């Protein structure tokens, strides 16, 4: 499969000097990964593990206090190669929405609250379409119908729509130009289970139809199981495991992944589930060595001293754990 996105040794830190305390939050710490054309790549991990930060960095949507410390992000849009951090702001601007759309976290609240939704479509997409307004909105209407949204809703204000409708609206907005790469940050969180299911199915359908690549973030493993082709597990700013979805669920390698998959209760399975003690590390002062080791049931001597590298243990499978890879690397 051809790569659309290549990320190498990406480090992005929040540098905050706040009221007397100089803090550096290493939210993305040395992450490399690639995403294929037409692939749905899922990122999972607990809250504040750096998922959002990672995709912000990929999308080039950084603003202080976040800084990219090292590494690069390359796209292969339209056959060429674009290094997002080597581009001029205008060039980056030109990529947006046409080739790359980004649905931010909290996508229920990303529409301008004081203007009708119609205007958002004009602002975001009309520029890129060399057609008249009337034809443009005809196209929009068709697109909305595909997402089971009434085109009349264009004349509503965002607050007049339910959360699910708003999220679908945002997805419609992000997909109207059929970009090559779509990034979505928790697009279904806080949705009703039934609505969530609808939205997810729809995302999948559109993605298939358009052949776009998707980078998908959520901490809900159930969602991943439904949507993602491949999953990367993030823990405390690092990628700790990466595997095709089926393999990850059936045979998780990293102890954290194992816990993540194993602790979730299932209907029809009343067996007792263990709970993991401790709390996620503070990214301003992460533990030495493997960041998971204080909570790890399999921790070894070395875990607190050396950082386990992300090792390819099988085709398409990478994991960063001494317990799996041994400490020879």
């Amino acid at each position: 499969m051809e790569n659309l996105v290549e990320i190498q040794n990406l480090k992005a830190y929040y540098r905050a000097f706040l009221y007397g305390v100089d803090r550096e939050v290493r939210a993305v710490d040395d992450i490399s990964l690639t995403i294929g054309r037409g692939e749905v790549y899922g990122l999972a991990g607990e809250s504040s593990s750096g998922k959002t930060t990672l995709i912000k960095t990929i999308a080039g949507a950084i603003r202080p206090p976040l800084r990219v410390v090292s590494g690069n992000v390359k796209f292969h849009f339209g056959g060429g190669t674009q290094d997002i951090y080597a581009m001029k702001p205008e060039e980056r601007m030109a990529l947006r929405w046409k080739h790359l759309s980004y649905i931010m976290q909290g996508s229920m609240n990303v529409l301008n609250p004081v203007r009708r939704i119609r205007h958002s479509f004009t602002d975001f997409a009309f520029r890129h379409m060399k057609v008249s307004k009337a034809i443009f909105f005809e196209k929009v209407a068709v697109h909305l119908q595909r997402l089971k949204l009434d085109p009349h809703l264009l004349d509503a204000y965002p607050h007049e729509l339910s959360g699910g409708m708003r999220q679908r609206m945002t997805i419609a907005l992000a997909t109207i130009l059929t970009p090559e790469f779509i990034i979505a940050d928790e697009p279904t969180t806080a949705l009703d289970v039934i609505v969530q299911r609808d939205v997810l199915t729809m995302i999948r359908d559109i993605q298939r139809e358009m052949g776009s690549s998707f980078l998908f973030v959520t901490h809900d493993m159930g969602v991943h199981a439904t949507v993602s082709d491949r999953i990367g597990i993030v823990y405390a700013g690092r990628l700790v495991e990466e595997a095709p979805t089926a393999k990850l669920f059936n045979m998780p390698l990293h102890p954290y992944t194992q816990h993540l998959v194993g602790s979730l209760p299932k209907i029809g399975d009343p067996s007792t589930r263990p709970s993991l003690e401790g709390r996620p590390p503070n990214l301003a002062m992460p533990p030495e060595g493997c960041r998971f080791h204080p909570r790890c049931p399999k921790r070894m001597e070395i875990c607190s001293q050396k950082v386990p590298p992300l090792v390819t243990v099988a085709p398409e499978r990478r994991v960063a754990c001494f317990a799996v890879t041994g400490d020879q690397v």
Partner: protein
Amino acid sequence: MLGRRLITAVNDVSFELGDEPEILSIVGESGSGKSTVAAMILGQTEPSEGALQFAGKTVAIHSRAERTAFMKEVQPVLQNPFEAFNPLKRVDRYLFETARNFSAGKRPDRQQAEKMADAALHHVGLTLEEVKGRFPHELSGGQLQRVAIARALIPQPRLLVADEPVSMVDASLRMAIVNLFGRLKSELGLSIIYITHDLATAYYVSDNIIIMRKGEIVERGRARTVLDDPQHEYSRALKDAVLAADFSGVG
């Protein structure tokens, strides 16, 4: 013998909790009225029709004394542990306040209050030492939620109302809380109304379940029975929509 706990809510919702300690889950789509039911059970919202009965008597809260008496029996667990404590105040303050305000007889002094708080904290797997003098931001979400539960335990209530107590905490902490509920029921003989979106945890922890939709109960019964084989159409849709956290090849 103690009478029964009959609860009536907005859209002709009636259900009851028996004398035996139990965990009752209320599940349903967003906006189906779960929180409203919770608010009514807690006496925060007055039912416009029907009544709430507790220990055989209709609950009527007119005076402060009546309210205190009621709060002694029914306590809430709030949804977001990070929000449940005033960030400007130490968390132990709520433990001590509760201890002072709800103990029978004369107000306990500082030492007694501490003892009561410590005892409550033990039930949730914490000690006063870990908590004392700390501000909310110094504790993890799981710890905070457990402190909140400990606080609710101090008046020795017979019923806890937990409105989505785990939806805001991490997957890794979620099970800790849910497991705690199970323990509290068996150790303290406490009944818990557990409101959630998450059918899986409801299935995991509760004895009975109520499935709500648009302010009405569509199905109820033993949790396992209902969820293993939902009868109502909506219940089935709900169950189907649950995205199993294992790879079943949906995609």
